[in-house]
C-alpha cells in the first residue's frame, strides 16, 4: 500500500509540475504584483486548461501524500519522492526545451541521491 501511494505521488507530481511549468511559460513572466493585477491573473489562470489539469494532478499527489503521511513517517514519505527530480529534468529538456548544462544535471542527480539518502 505504501509503495502504491509512492508511485501515485511520483507520477502525479511529475505531470502536475510539468503542466504547470508549460502553462506558466506560455503565460509569460509575471511582472505586476499589485493586488488587482494578481486577482485578474488568478481569474485568467482559473480558466486555463493546462493549469486546471496541473492542479488536478497536484491534488491527487497531495491527497496521496496526506494518506501516506497518515500511515508512515515524514522521513519515509519525503524521500520517496526523490525520483521526480531526474524525471522532471528530462521532461524539462525535451518538452520545455530548457538548456540543461552539466552543472544542472549534476545538481539534479545530487539532489535526487541526497533526498533518497534522507530516509536512512
Amino acid at each position, binding site marked *: 500500500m505504501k509503495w502504491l501511494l509512492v508511485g501515485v505521488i511520483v507520477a502525479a507530481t511529475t505531470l502536475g509540475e510539468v503542466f504547470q*511549468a508549460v502553462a*506558466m511559460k506560455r503565460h509569460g*513572466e*509575471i511582472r505586476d504584483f499589485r493586488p488587482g493585477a494578481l486577482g485578474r491573473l488568478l481569474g485568467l489562470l482559473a480558466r486555463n486548461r493546462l493549469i486546471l489539469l496541473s492542479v488536478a494532478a497536484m491534488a491527487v499527489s497531495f491527497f496521496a501524500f496526506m494518506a501516506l*503521511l497518515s500511515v508512515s513517517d515524514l522521513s519515509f514519505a519525503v524521500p520517496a519522492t526523490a525520483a521526480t*527530480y531526474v524525471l522532471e529534468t528530462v521532461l524539462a529538456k525535451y518538452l520545455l526545451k530548457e538548456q540543461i548544462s552539466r552543472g544542472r544535471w549534476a545538481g539534479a542527480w545530487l539532489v535526487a541521491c541526497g*533526498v533518497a539518502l534522507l530516509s536512512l
Partner: protein
Amino acid sequence: MDTRSAALRLKTRVFTILVVLSNVLGNFSLSWGLRRVGSLLSVSPLAYIEALGNPWVALGVSLLILWLLSHMALLSWADLSYVLPVTSIGYVLAAVVGRVFLHEHISTARWAGILLIVTGVALVARTAPRTAHGGGRR
C-alpha cells in the same frame, strides 16, 4: 541589460525563499496535525474534510496553497530544471526543523543526504534561472 538580469535574480531569490518556507512550514504543520487525526486510508472524502477541522491541518493546507501560487509565479519566468533542484533546499530545512523542534535523530546517512542536497542546490543556483527564452547563461 545587467540591471535587468540582476533584478531577475533578486526576484528569483525572493520567490524561492517564499516557495521553500511555505512548503516546509506547510508540510510540518500538516504532519503535526495528521498525527492527531489518525489514519486517512479511507475511500470516503469525508475523512479528509473532517481532518481539515484540525487547526494544524487547516494551517498546513493554507500554507500549501500559498506554496502552489508562489511556485506558479516563479515558474512564469524561471526554468523548471532550475526551480526544482533549488527549492529542494527545503528538505534540509525540514531536517533541521525536525532536529531542533521535534528532537529527531539525524543519522550519518541523513547528514550525507543533506550534504549532497546542499551541493546540488549550490551547483544549480549558480546557473542562470532562465535559459529557454533567450535568458542567456552567466
